[in-house]
Protein backbone atom coordinates (compact mmCIF):
# COMPACT_ATOMS: atom_id res chain seq x y z
CA UNK A 1 0.00 0.00 0.00
CA UNK A 2 1.58 3.28 -1.06
CA UNK A 3 2.11 5.84 1.59
CA UNK A 4 0.21 9.13 1.22
CA UNK A 5 2.36 11.95 -0.01
CA UNK A 6 3.73 14.04 2.84
CA UNK A 7 1.92 17.30 3.44
CA UNK A 8 3.90 19.97 1.79
CA UNK A 9 4.51 23.15 3.74
CA UNK A 10 2.85 26.20 2.25
CA UNK A 11 5.19 28.22 0.09
CA UNK A 12 6.55 31.34 1.76
CA UNK A 13 4.67 33.62 -0.64
CA UNK A 14 1.31 32.13 0.43
CA UNK A 15 2.16 32.54 4.07
CA UNK A 16 3.17 36.12 3.50
CA UNK A 17 -0.11 36.85 1.71
CA UNK A 18 -2.14 35.18 4.46
CA UNK A 19 -0.29 37.10 7.15
CA UNK A 20 -0.79 40.34 5.25
CA UNK A 21 -4.49 39.61 4.93
CA UNK A 22 -4.79 38.83 8.63
CA UNK A 23 -3.00 42.07 9.47
CA UNK A 24 -5.36 44.04 7.23
CA UNK A 25 -8.40 42.41 8.82
CA UNK A 26 -7.09 43.17 12.26
CA UNK A 27 -6.38 46.78 11.36
CA UNK A 28 -9.90 47.08 9.98
CA UNK A 29 -11.39 45.60 13.15
CA UNK A 30 -9.30 47.86 15.37
CA UNK A 31 -10.39 50.87 13.32
CA UNK A 32 -14.03 49.90 13.73
CA UNK A 33 -13.59 49.44 17.48
CA UNK A 34 -11.95 52.86 17.77
CA UNK A 35 -14.77 54.48 15.82
CA UNK A 36 -17.31 52.80 18.08
CA UNK A 37 -15.52 54.08 21.18
CA UNK A 38 -15.37 57.61 19.74
CA UNK A 39 -19.08 57.46 18.89
CA UNK A 40 -19.89 56.19 22.39
CA UNK A 41 -17.78 58.96 23.96
CA UNK A 42 -19.49 61.66 21.91
CA UNK A 43 -22.91 60.20 22.69
CA UNK A 44 -22.05 60.13 26.41
CA UNK A 45 -20.98 63.76 26.29
CA UNK A 46 -24.09 64.82 24.36
CA UNK A 47 -26.39 62.94 26.72
CA UNK A 48 -24.65 64.39 29.77
CA UNK A 49 -24.85 67.88 28.24
CA UNK A 50 -28.57 67.46 27.67
CA UNK A 51 -29.20 66.13 31.15
CA UNK A 52 -27.17 68.86 32.83
CA UNK A 53 -28.74 71.59 30.72
CA UNK A 54 -32.33 70.51 31.25
CA UNK A 55 -32.24 68.81 34.63
CA UNK A 56 -29.08 69.98 36.40
CA UNK A 57 -28.91 72.85 38.81
CA UNK A 58 -27.73 76.12 37.31
CA UNK A 59 -27.19 77.86 40.60
CA UNK A 60 -29.16 80.68 42.05
CA UNK A 61 -30.12 83.34 39.55
CA UNK A 62 -31.05 85.48 42.54
CA UNK A 63 -27.54 85.20 43.90
CA UNK A 64 -26.11 86.20 40.54
CA UNK A 65 -28.27 89.30 40.34
CA UNK A 66 -27.50 90.22 43.92
CA UNK A 67 -23.79 89.87 43.34
CA UNK A 68 -23.83 91.89 40.15
CA UNK A 69 -26.07 94.59 41.55
CA UNK A 70 -23.93 94.90 44.66
CA UNK A 71 -27.03 95.81 46.61
CA UNK A 72 -25.59 94.55 49.88
CA UNK A 73 -28.36 92.03 50.29
CA UNK A 74 -27.36 88.78 51.92
CA UNK A 75 -28.65 85.88 49.97
CA UNK A 76 -28.32 82.46 51.43
CA UNK A 77 -29.41 79.43 49.46
CA UNK A 78 -31.18 79.29 46.18
CA UNK A 79 -34.58 80.15 47.61
CA UNK A 80 -33.53 83.53 48.89
CA UNK A 81 -34.53 86.46 46.75
CA UNK A 82 -32.79 89.82 46.81
CA UNK A 83 -35.08 92.74 47.50
CA UNK A 84 -36.22 94.53 44.41
CA UNK A 85 -35.02 98.10 44.02
CA UNK A 86 -38.55 99.40 44.48
CA UNK A 87 -38.87 97.47 47.69
CA UNK A 88 -35.78 98.91 49.31
CA UNK A 89 -37.74 101.76 50.74
CA UNK A 90 -40.03 99.32 52.44
CA UNK A 91 -37.06 97.74 54.25
CA UNK A 92 -36.77 100.84 56.37
CA UNK A 93 -40.32 100.30 57.49
CA UNK A 94 -39.65 96.75 58.62
CA UNK A 95 -38.88 96.03 62.22
CA UNK A 96 -35.26 95.60 63.31
CA UNK A 97 -35.25 91.82 63.14
CA UNK A 98 -36.37 91.73 59.56
CA UNK A 99 -34.09 94.46 58.36
CA UNK A 100 -31.11 92.83 60.06
CA UNK A 101 -31.80 89.72 58.06
CA UNK A 102 -30.81 91.61 54.94
CA UNK A 103 -28.06 93.86 56.27
CA UNK A 104 -26.74 92.70 59.62
CA UNK A 105 -23.93 95.24 59.91
CA UNK A 106 -25.53 98.01 58.03
CA UNK A 107 -22.78 97.57 55.48
CA UNK A 108 -22.43 95.34 52.48
CA UNK A 109 -23.29 91.82 53.53
CA UNK A 110 -21.49 88.84 52.05
CA UNK A 111 -23.18 86.98 49.26
CA UNK A 112 -23.25 83.40 50.38
CA UNK A 113 -24.15 81.44 47.35
CA UNK A 114 -22.44 79.44 44.73
CA UNK A 115 -22.99 78.36 41.20
CA UNK A 116 -24.06 74.82 41.66
Amino acid at each position, binding site marked *: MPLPPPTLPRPPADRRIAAERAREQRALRVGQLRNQVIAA*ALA*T*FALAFGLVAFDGSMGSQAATSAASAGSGAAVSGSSAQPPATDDLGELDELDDGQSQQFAPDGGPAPVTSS*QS
Partner: protein
Amino acid sequence: MFGVHFFWITSRAAGIAALLLASAAVGFGLVMSGRLVKGRTQDLRPVHEALSLATLVALGVHAFALLGDGFLHPSLADVTIPFASGYQRFWQTVGIVGGWMLVILGLSFYARARIGVQRWRRLHRFTALAWVLSVGHSLGEGTDAGRVWFLAATGMVVLPTLWLLIERHAGALVAPPTERADAA
Protein backbone atom coordinates in the same frame (compact mmCIF):
# COMPACT_ATOMS: atom_id res chain seq x y z
CA MET B 1 -29.86 78.97 24.18
CA PHE B 2 -27.66 78.18 27.19
CA GLY B 3 -26.31 81.72 27.46
CA VAL B 4 -23.90 82.38 30.27
CA HIS B 5 -24.03 78.76 31.42
CA PHE B 6 -22.63 77.26 28.22
CA PHE B 7 -19.08 76.73 29.47
CA TRP B 8 -20.33 75.60 32.87
CA ILE B 9 -22.60 72.97 31.32
CA THR B 10 -19.88 71.92 28.89
CA SER B 11 -17.40 71.44 31.71
CA ARG B 12 -19.82 69.41 33.78
CA ALA B 13 -20.88 67.24 30.85
CA ALA B 14 -17.23 66.63 29.94
CA GLY B 15 -16.48 65.76 33.55
CA ILE B 16 -19.27 63.21 33.60
CA ALA B 17 -18.11 61.77 30.28
CA ALA B 18 -14.52 61.63 31.57
CA LEU B 19 -15.62 59.77 34.70
CA LEU B 20 -17.64 57.21 32.76
CA LEU B 21 -14.95 56.73 30.12
CA ALA B 22 -12.19 56.43 32.73
CA SER B 23 -14.25 53.87 34.63
CA ALA B 24 -14.74 51.85 31.47
CA ALA B 25 -11.05 52.15 30.56
CA VAL B 26 -9.93 51.00 34.01
CA GLY B 27 -12.48 48.19 33.87
CA PHE B 28 -11.18 47.00 30.50
CA GLY B 29 -7.64 47.23 31.84
CA LEU B 30 -8.51 45.08 34.83
CA VAL B 31 -10.26 42.54 32.62
CA MET B 32 -7.19 42.40 30.38
CA SER B 33 -4.67 42.10 33.17
CA GLY B 34 -6.78 39.57 35.04
CA ARG B 35 -7.26 37.51 31.87
CA LEU B 36 -10.95 37.29 32.66
CA VAL B 37 -12.09 36.97 29.04
CA LYS B 38 -11.38 33.98 26.85
CA GLY B 39 -10.77 34.46 23.13
CA ARG B 40 -10.49 37.67 21.10
CA THR B 41 -8.56 39.26 23.94
CA GLN B 42 -6.48 41.08 21.35
CA ASP B 43 -9.50 43.33 20.74
CA LEU B 44 -9.51 44.51 24.34
CA ARG B 45 -6.27 46.47 24.09
CA PRO B 46 -7.37 48.85 21.30
CA VAL B 47 -10.67 49.43 23.13
CA HIS B 48 -8.78 50.12 26.37
CA GLU B 49 -6.45 52.49 24.53
CA ALA B 50 -9.28 54.32 22.73
CA LEU B 51 -11.24 54.68 25.97
CA SER B 52 -8.15 56.07 27.71
CA LEU B 53 -7.50 58.62 24.98
CA ALA B 54 -11.18 59.64 24.95
CA THR B 55 -10.93 60.08 28.73
CA LEU B 56 -7.95 62.41 28.34
CA VAL B 57 -9.80 64.51 25.74
CA ALA B 58 -12.86 64.73 27.99
CA LEU B 59 -10.61 65.67 30.92
CA GLY B 60 -9.08 68.49 28.89
CA VAL B 61 -12.52 69.81 27.95
CA HIS B 62 -13.66 69.45 31.59
CA ALA B 63 -10.77 71.56 32.88
CA PHE B 64 -10.37 74.14 30.16
CA ALA B 65 -14.06 74.81 29.50
CA LEU B 66 -14.19 76.16 33.04
CA LEU B 67 -11.87 78.98 31.98
CA GLY B 68 -14.73 80.42 29.96
CA ASP B 69 -17.19 80.36 32.84
CA GLY B 70 -18.32 83.87 33.63
CA PHE B 71 -19.34 83.11 37.21
CA LEU B 72 -16.36 81.32 38.74
CA HIS B 73 -13.74 83.06 36.56
CA PRO B 74 -11.08 80.48 37.41
CA SER B 75 -7.53 81.10 36.26
CA LEU B 76 -5.42 78.53 34.45
CA ALA B 77 -3.62 77.91 37.76
CA ASP B 78 -6.93 77.28 39.51
CA VAL B 79 -7.76 74.38 37.20
CA THR B 80 -4.28 72.90 36.82
CA ILE B 81 -2.38 73.44 40.08
CA PRO B 82 -3.38 71.64 43.28
CA PHE B 83 -4.43 73.89 46.19
CA ALA B 84 -4.42 76.99 43.96
CA SER B 85 -8.17 77.37 43.79
CA GLY B 86 -10.14 78.72 46.72
CA TYR B 87 -13.32 77.06 45.48
CA GLN B 88 -13.88 73.67 47.17
CA ARG B 89 -10.13 73.45 47.62
CA PHE B 90 -9.91 69.88 48.88
CA TRP B 91 -12.06 68.19 46.23
CA GLN B 92 -10.68 70.47 43.51
CA THR B 93 -7.18 69.36 44.49
CA VAL B 94 -8.24 65.72 44.55
CA GLY B 95 -9.58 66.16 40.99
CA ILE B 96 -6.50 67.98 39.75
CA VAL B 97 -4.11 65.39 41.21
CA GLY B 98 -6.23 62.55 39.81
CA GLY B 99 -6.43 64.27 36.43
CA TRP B 100 -2.69 64.81 36.18
CA MET B 101 -2.06 61.22 37.23
CA LEU B 102 -4.41 59.99 34.51
CA VAL B 103 -2.69 62.17 31.91
CA ILE B 104 0.85 61.20 32.89
CA LEU B 105 0.18 57.50 33.48
CA GLY B 106 -2.01 57.25 30.38
CA LEU B 107 0.46 58.90 28.02
CA SER B 108 3.37 56.97 29.53
CA PHE B 109 2.10 54.03 27.47
CA TYR B 110 3.72 55.63 24.43
CA ALA B 111 7.05 55.89 26.23
CA ARG B 112 7.05 52.39 27.73
CA ALA B 113 9.97 51.26 25.63
CA ARG B 114 12.02 54.09 27.07
CA ILE B 115 10.71 53.58 30.61
CA GLY B 116 11.09 49.82 30.50
CA VAL B 117 8.09 47.55 30.13
CA GLN B 118 8.27 46.06 33.64
CA ARG B 119 8.71 49.44 35.29
CA TRP B 120 5.89 50.87 33.13
CA ARG B 121 3.58 48.03 34.21
CA ARG B 122 4.27 48.77 37.86
CA LEU B 123 3.62 52.47 37.25
CA HIS B 124 0.49 51.76 35.24
CA ARG B 125 -1.16 50.14 38.28
CA PHE B 126 -1.37 53.60 39.88
CA THR B 127 -3.96 54.49 37.23
CA ALA B 128 -6.49 52.75 39.46
CA LEU B 129 -5.57 55.16 42.26
CA ALA B 130 -6.03 58.11 39.90
CA TRP B 131 -9.43 56.72 38.95
CA VAL B 132 -10.42 56.40 42.62
CA LEU B 133 -9.41 60.06 43.11
CA SER B 134 -11.52 61.10 40.15
CA VAL B 135 -14.53 59.22 41.54
CA GLY B 136 -13.99 60.98 44.86
CA HIS B 137 -13.73 64.34 43.10
CA SER B 138 -16.96 63.81 41.18
CA LEU B 139 -18.92 62.65 44.23
CA GLY B 140 -17.40 65.23 46.56
CA GLU B 141 -17.50 68.30 44.36
CA GLY B 142 -19.72 67.36 41.45
CA THR B 143 -22.74 69.58 41.15
CA ASP B 144 -24.80 66.69 39.81
CA ALA B 145 -23.62 64.22 42.44
CA GLY B 146 -27.03 64.21 44.08
CA ARG B 147 -29.00 63.64 40.89
CA VAL B 148 -30.57 60.24 40.36
CA TRP B 149 -29.53 60.00 36.72
CA PHE B 150 -25.93 60.80 37.63
CA LEU B 151 -25.82 58.23 40.41
CA ALA B 152 -27.47 55.62 38.19
CA ALA B 153 -25.08 56.22 35.27
CA THR B 154 -22.05 56.35 37.53
CA GLY B 155 -23.11 53.28 39.48
CA MET B 156 -23.53 51.24 36.30
CA VAL B 157 -19.92 51.86 35.28
CA VAL B 158 -18.11 52.58 38.53
CA LEU B 159 -19.43 49.69 40.62
CA PRO B 160 -18.40 46.87 38.25
CA THR B 161 -14.96 48.44 37.90
CA LEU B 162 -14.68 48.84 41.65
CA TRP B 163 -15.65 45.22 42.08
CA LEU B 164 -12.96 44.17 39.57
CA LEU B 165 -10.41 46.31 41.38
CA ILE B 166 -11.27 44.87 44.79
CA GLU B 167 -11.31 41.36 43.33
CA ARG B 168 -7.90 41.96 41.79
CA HIS B 169 -6.31 43.24 44.95
CA ALA B 170 -8.06 40.76 47.20
CA GLY B 171 -6.92 38.00 44.83
CA ALA B 172 -3.37 39.30 44.89
CA LEU B 173 -3.43 39.41 48.67
CA VAL B 174 -4.78 35.91 49.20
CA ALA B 175 -2.94 34.20 46.33
CA PRO B 176 -0.11 31.91 47.39
CA PRO B 177 3.39 33.26 46.71
CA THR B 178 4.04 30.96 43.76
CA GLU B 179 0.86 32.09 42.03
CA ARG B 180 1.73 35.72 42.66
CA ALA B 181 5.14 35.16 41.14
CA ASP B 182 3.52 33.65 38.05
CA ALA B 183 1.11 36.55 37.70
CA ALA B 184 3.93 39.07 37.93
